C-alpha cells in the first residue's frame, strides 16, 4: 500500500498514517505530554525505540508483577558478558507508550536495530557512545540558516531567543546527538531540562501537543549540526533505516495510524513520506547477527543515574519520578518530603521553615529568570533554609530523594535462565530479599534456615556472584555458630547470574560444576582452600572429588611446605563440618594423611634455612600445630602424638635455626613435654653464639608467651639477666628483635610484666638479688624501655 493509496482510503483518520513523537528519554515531561498525545491520535499500532527481539516480552507490561524501574536485558547466551540493558522508569515516555498500548490492547513493538545485530561482534559500536563524527557539520550552517531568516524558527520558539551561533552552536552540536532537548533547555538557560519542558514546551502551548514543534525544532537542529561521519554516524544511519523499515512493515500490515515513539533526535527522519525502501534495505544488508536472549530484570533508580542503552543517564531519577507523580504543586510537595526526610534523621524542621524554603526556591527562580523553580532552586533552598548550610545533611536528602533507592520487580512468569528461577525460588523460600541498600545479616548456624542461607551465600561466592560477602573473615568464624554477612544487590548481578547459568540449572548444581571445573591444575593449597569453601557451601559431590584430588596431589607433591600450607584449611573445614553436622570422616582422614606426610618430611625441610625461610617455616609450624590441635579435639589424638614426637626429635638438632629451636621448645613446653624450660633457656643464652642468634631463640620462644614470663620467675630472671649482660653494641643489635617479641604481648600483659620486674618480684626470688641496688636500677630501666617500646 502506498501513501497515495492510503490518502484515498475513506476510512483513514483525519491525521496522517504515521505520527512521530520525539521524546526525551526518561523525561517525565515528555511522558506526560505523550500520553495525552496518544489519547488524541488513537493509534492502531505503537512503535517504540528499542530492540525488536524483545517484542515477546512486551506482553508483561501491565502485569502487576512487573514494576519499574526494570530493564530489558539482552545477552548472547554463549558469551553472556556480551549484554546490553534498556532501562525503563515509570516516568520514561517509552514505558508510558507501551503501557498505553497494552491497556488498550493496541499492537505494540520495538523498531530499533535488534539486539542480535547490536551485540554481534562488529555491531558493538552501534550502542557505544562513540566520540568520532560528533565534531562538526560538513556544510556551512550559516548559509542554511539564511533560508529561514525572517520568520521565527522552531528552535528560536523553544529557546525564546535567537538560535545560537558560534561557540554556543558548537556546544549545542556536541550535546545534540545525546540529549538534544536537554541541549535546547540548556541553551535556553535552564539546567533542569524537565522544568524547561514544563515551562517552555507545555507552558507556552496551552495544552495542544508539543510534538509537532519538537519535530520541527529537531529538523532545524539536525540541519544545524550537519552530516556526521565515522562509525557512530554509520550506526545511527543503520538504526534510522531500521526504524523506517519497521514503520513501512506496519503500514503494509494494514495499520492506518502508526505512532512512533523515539528519541527526539530521530523524529525528523521518520515522518511520512518515508521515501523509497530500497536505500534503507541496502543500508541494512549484510549486517552481522548473533543469537541473543532477552529478558526483563529489576533495575534501580541509582542505576538509571548511570548511562544506559538509551544514551546519557539521568542524575536525578527521584526528582523526575516526583515530577511525574505529583501532578500539582511539585515544589511544595517536594520540600515537604525533604522536611519529612530530615525529621526522620532527627533534624528538626518546622512547617514555617518549609514555607520559607518554598519562597526562597521561587524567588531564586525569578532571580534566575526562570518561571518555575527546578531541582537547582529546591536544592539551594533546602541547603540554605532546611539544612543550615550543612552539606552533609543535604547529602542525606540527595541520596534518599533526588536519586532514590527504588528497586523494580519482575514477575516469576518472565522467561529467564533456569538458574535465575532457582535463585528466585531459593531466596523466596529462605525469606531473603534482593535489595539495593546494603544491610548486614547475622546467622545462627544452629537454626536450619540460617544454615541454608549460609550455604546459599557460600555457593554464590563460588559462582562469583557478589551479592553476599562475609562481614567477618572466614577464619574468625572457625567453629562458631555465628556468621555475619553483608548483603547488597546490584542490578548488574543479573548478568552475573546469566553468566553463572552456563554451569548448571540450580545454584547447587552450578556451584558443584564450577568447582569441578577449577579443580584441574590447582595447587595443593588452593585445593585445600576450595575444600573449605565447598564444605561451607555444602556441596558433598564436589567435596568427594576434591578430596580425591587433594590426596592425589599430596602424594605427588614432594614439597613438605606445600603440605603444611594445606593442612590448616583442611582442619578448619573438618571443624566447620562438625558445626554444620556434615559427615567429615573422609575430610578428617585426608587431613591426617597430610599431617603424617608432613611429619615424615619435616626434618628435611628444616635444615640449612636462612633467616627469612626460618620465619616462614616457623609460621607454618605454628599453623599446623594449631590445626593438629583442632584435629585432636575431633578425636585424632594419635596424630597429635606423632606430630609432637616429630617436634621433640627435631628440637635437639644443632643445625636447626635458632628461631625454630626456640619455637619448637616453646611448643613442647606448652604441651608439657619439656619440664626443664629454664635450663633450656639458660643453655640457649649461655653458649658462645652471636647475640643475634640468641635473640632469635628468644623470639621463637617468647612470642605470644607473656603468660610464661609473668608466672615463671625463673624464666623472667634469666631473660632479664641476659639483657642486662649485653654489651652496648650487642644491645643495639638485638633491640629490634626483642622489641618485636614483646610487641606480641597485650598492653595488660606488658603492664603486669613491668610491675613484676619493678617490684623486685614478690612472686619469687628476685634476679641477682644479691647485687647492690645501684646496679639493678639501670637494668630495670632498660627493661622498662624495651617494654615501653613494645607497647607503642
Amino acid at each position: 500500500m502506498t501513501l497515495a493509496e492510503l490518502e484515498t482510503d475513506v476510512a483513514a483518520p483525519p491525521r496522517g498514517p504515521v505520527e512521530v513523537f520525539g521524546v526525551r528519554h526518561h523525561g517525565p515531561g515528555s511522558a506526560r505530554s505523550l500520553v495525552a498525545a496518544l489519547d488524541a491520535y488513537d493509534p492502531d499500532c505503537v512503535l517504540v525505540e528499542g530492540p525488536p527481539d524483545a517484542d515477546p516480552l512486551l506482553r508483561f507490561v501491565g502485569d502487576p508483577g512487573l514494576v519499574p524501574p526494570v530493564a530489558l536485558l539482552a545477552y548472547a547466551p554463549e558469551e553472556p558478558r556480551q549484554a546490553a540493558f534498556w532501562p525503563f522508569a515509570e516516568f520514561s515516555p517509552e514505558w508510558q507508550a507501551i503501557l498505553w498500548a497494552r491497556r488498550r490492547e493496541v499492537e505494540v513493538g520495538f523498531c530499533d536495530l535488534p539486539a542480535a545485530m547490536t551485540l554481534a561482534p562488529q555491531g558493538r559500536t552501534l550502542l557505544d557512545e562513540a566520540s568520532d563524527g560528533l565534531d562538526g557539520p560538513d556544510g556551512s550552517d550559516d548559509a542554511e540558516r539564511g533560508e529561514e531568516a525572517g520568520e521565527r524558527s522552531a528552535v528560536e520558539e523553544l529557546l525564546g531567543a535567537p538560535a545560537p551561533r558560534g561557540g554556543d552552536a558548537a556546544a549545542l552540536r556536541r550535546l545534540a546527538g545525546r540529549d538534544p532537548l536537554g541541549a535546547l533547555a540548556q541553551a535556553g538557560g535552564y539546567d533542569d531540562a524537565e522544568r524547561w519542558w514544563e515551562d517552555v514546551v507545555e507552558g507556552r502551548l496551552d495544552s495542544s501537543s508539543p510534538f509537532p514543534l519538537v519535530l520541527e525544532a529537531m529538523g532545524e537542529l539536525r540541519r544545524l549540526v550537519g552530516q556526521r561521519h565515522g562509525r557512530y554516524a554509520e550506526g545511527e544511519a543503520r538504526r534510522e533505516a531500521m526504524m523506517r523499515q519497521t514503520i513501512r512493515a506496519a503500514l503494509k500490515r494494514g495499520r492506518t495510524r502508526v505512532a512512533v515513539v523515539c528519541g527526539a533526535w530521530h523524529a525528523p527522519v521518520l515522518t511520512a513520506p518515508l521515501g523509497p525502501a530500497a536505500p534503507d534495505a541496502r543500508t541494512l544488508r549484510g549486517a552481522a547477527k548473533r543469537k541473543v536472549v532477552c529478558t526483563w530484570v529489576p533495575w534501580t533508580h541509582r542505576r538509571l543515574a548511570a548511562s544506559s542503552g538509551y544514551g546519557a543517564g539521568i542524575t536525578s531519577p527521584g526528582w523526575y519520578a516526583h515530577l511525574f507523580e505529583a501532578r500539582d504543586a511539585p515544589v511544595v510537595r517536594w520540600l515537604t518530603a525533604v522536611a519529612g526526610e530530615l525529621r526522620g534523621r532527627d533534624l528538626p524542621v518546622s512547617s514555617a521553615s518549609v514555607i520559607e524554603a518554598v519562597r526562597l526556591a521561587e524567588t531564586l527562580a525569578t532571580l534566575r529568570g526562570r518561571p518555575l523553580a527546578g531541582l537547582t532552586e529546591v536544592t539551594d533552598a533546602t541547603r540554605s533554609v532546611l539544612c543550615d548550610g550543612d552539606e552533609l545533611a543535604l547529602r542525606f536528602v540527595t541520596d534518599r530523594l533526588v536519586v532514590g533507592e527504588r528497586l523494580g520487580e519482575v514477575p516469576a512468569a518472565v522467561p529467564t535462565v533456569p538458574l535465575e528461577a532457582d535463585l528466585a525460588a531459593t531466596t523466596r523460600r529462605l525469606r531473603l530479599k534482593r535489595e539495593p541498600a546494603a544491610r548486614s545479616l547475622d546467622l545462627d548456624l544452629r537454626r536450619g534456615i540460617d544454615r541454608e542461607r549460609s550455604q546459599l551465600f557460600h555457593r554464590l561466592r563460588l559462582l562469583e556472584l557478589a551479592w553476599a560477602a562475609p562481614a567477618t573473615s572466614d577464619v574468625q568464624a572457625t567453629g562458631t555458630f555465628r556468621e555475619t554477612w553483608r548483603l547488597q544487590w546490584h542490578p548488574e548481578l543479573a548478568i552475573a547470574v546469566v553468566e553463572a547459568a552456563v554451569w548448571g540449572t540450580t545454584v547447587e548444581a552450578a556451584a558443584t560444576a564450577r568447582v569441578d571445573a577449577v579443580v584441574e591444575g590447582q595447587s595443593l593449597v588452593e585445593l585445600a582452600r576450595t575444600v573449605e569453601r565447598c564444605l561451607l557451601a555444602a556441596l558433598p559431590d564436589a567435596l568427594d572429588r576434591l578430596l580425591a584430588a587433594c590426596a592425589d596431589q599430596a602424594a605427588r607433591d614432594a614439597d613438605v611446605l606445600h603440605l603444611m600450607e594445606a593442612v590448616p584449611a583442611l582442619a578448619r573445614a573438618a571443624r566447620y563440618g562438625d558445626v554444620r553436622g556434615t559427615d567429615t570422616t573422609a575430610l578428617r582422614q585426608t587431613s591426617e594423611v597430610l599431617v603424617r606426610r608432613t611429619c615424615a618430611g619435616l626434618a628435611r625441610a628444616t635444615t640449612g634455612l636462612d633467616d627469612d625461610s626460618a620465619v616462614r617455616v616457623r609460621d607454618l609450624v605454628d599453623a599446623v600445630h594449631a590445626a593438629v590441635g583442632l584435629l585432636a579435639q575431633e578425636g585424632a589424638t594419635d596424630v597429635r602424638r606423632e606430630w609432637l614426637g616429630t617436634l621433640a626429635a627435631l628440637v635437639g638438632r644443632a643445625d636447626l635455626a635458632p628461631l625454630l629451636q626456640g619455637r619448637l621448645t616453646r611448643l613442647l613446653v606448652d604441651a608439657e613435654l619439656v619440664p626443664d624450660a629454664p635450663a633450656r633457656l639458660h643453655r640457649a643464652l649461655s653458649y658462645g653464639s652471636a647475640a643475634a642468634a640468641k635473640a632469635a631463640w628468644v623470639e621463637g620462644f617468647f612470642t605470644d608467651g607473656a603468660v610464661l614470663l609473668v608466672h615463671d620467675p625463673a624464666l623472667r630472671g634469666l631473660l632479664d639477666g641476659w639483657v642486662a649482660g649485653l654489651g652496648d653494641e650487642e644491645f643495639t643489635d638485638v633491640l629490634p628483635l626483642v622489641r618485636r617479641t614483646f610487641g606480641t604481648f597485650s598492653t595488660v600483659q606488658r603492664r603486669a610484666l613491668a610491675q613484676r620486674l619493678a617490684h623486685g618480684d614478690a612472686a619469687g626470688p628476685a634476679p641477682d638479688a644479691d647485687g647492690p641496688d645501684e646496679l639493678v636500677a639501670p637494668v630495670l630501666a632498660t627493661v622498662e624501655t624495651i617494654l615501653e617500646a613494645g607497647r607503642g
Partner: protein
Amino acid sequence: MTASTELAPADGVPAVLRPHAEVAFAAELEALEAFDAEEGRPRPPRWRLSPWSVVTYLVGGTLADGTVVSAKYIGSRRLMEVAVATLTTDRALLLLGLPGTAKSWVSEHLAAAVSGDSTLLVQGTSGTAEESIRYGWNYARLLAEGPTPEALVPSPVMVGMERGALTRVEELTRIPSDVQDALITVLSEKVLPVPELGREVAARPGFNVIATANDRDKGVNDLSSALRRRFNTVVLPLPTDVEDEVRIVTTRVADLTASLSLPPVSTAAEEIERVVTVFRELRAGVTADGRTAVRSPTATLSAAEAISVVTNGIALAAHFGDGVLRPADVASGIVGAVVKDPVADAQAWQEYLDVVVRERPGWGAFYEACRDST
C-alpha cells in the same frame, strides 16, 4: 603602614583610607540603577537596585551599554543568588564560613547595593550589650528631661527598621546568648517596643539583617535554634581552585595598593601565585600535585592573609627595594602569617621548606629568602 602613607605622592591621595563600598563603587551602582530603570526590572520596596542587579554588582559583568561592573565576590554566582533572594524574603541572612572567606566583605557590599548604605553595623564581641541591638539612653538628657524621644539613642538595628534598610551584625556568635535573644523578637515580630515612651518602632519594608559568623569559633556562643530559624544560611567556601584564589588576591591587592597610593610594582603575578600556592598547600595538608603530604600549621591561611602578605611585600618593594616584587619581599610576611605557634608551626614550616620548597624548580630564591627570615 604609616610610612607608606607619608611617602605617597600628594596628588591622587584618597580622602579616606578605606571608603565605604557605596562611595568607592558609586559609579557602578548608579549605572546599575539606570540600567534597572531602562529595563523596567522590578525592585523590592526601598531597594536601590533590582535583585538581579545586586547579584551582578557582586559577581561582576558587562551591562548592555558597555558599563563594566567589577567582581566584588569571586566565586559561585549561585551562592550570591541565594543570598540576595533571601534578603527579599522574610528571613534574615547568615553568612557562615572560615575566617577570611569574604563574609564581612560580601555583607558590606550587599548592604551598599541593596540599601545604598553599609554603615548600619553592629560589631559583635563578648561585650556587645542589648543597647546595641535595641536602644540606649543619653543619660544626661534622660536625667534632665525624663524619657523623651530625644533622649533615646537608637541602635543600628532600630535605625534600619525605621528607615527600611539592611542592618549588618558582624560576628554574631561572639555576642552573648541573652543579647542574641533580643534579635529574635526583632526578626520575628519586626517591631521593637519602647515601653518607656509607650510606643514601638515597626520595621518598614526593606529592613532585614545580614549576620556573619565564623564557623571556626563554633561553640563560642552557639546560636539558639530559635534564632537560627530566623536565618537562611549561606556558607562561603574557601576558593576551589588556584586560579580563583589568584584572581581574588590580585584584584584585592590592586585595590589596596591604589588606596594606599603605592607606586605600581612589577612581577607581582609570579609572587602572588607563589604565595597562594604555599597557602593552599599548607591549608590542604598536601602539595598541589597530590604527591607529598605536608603538615598544616594552626594559623588560618585564607585569601585574606595572602592579600595582606602581598600588599606588605609590595610596600617593601616600593619603598625599600627596586620597585620589583621579589621573593624576599614576601618571604618575611609568609613566615609571619604561617608561624603563629613558635614550636609546632615553626616545625611544620621548616619541614615544608625542606621537603617541598627546596626541591621545586624555580623556587630557589624563595627558599633562600625564607630560610633567611625564619
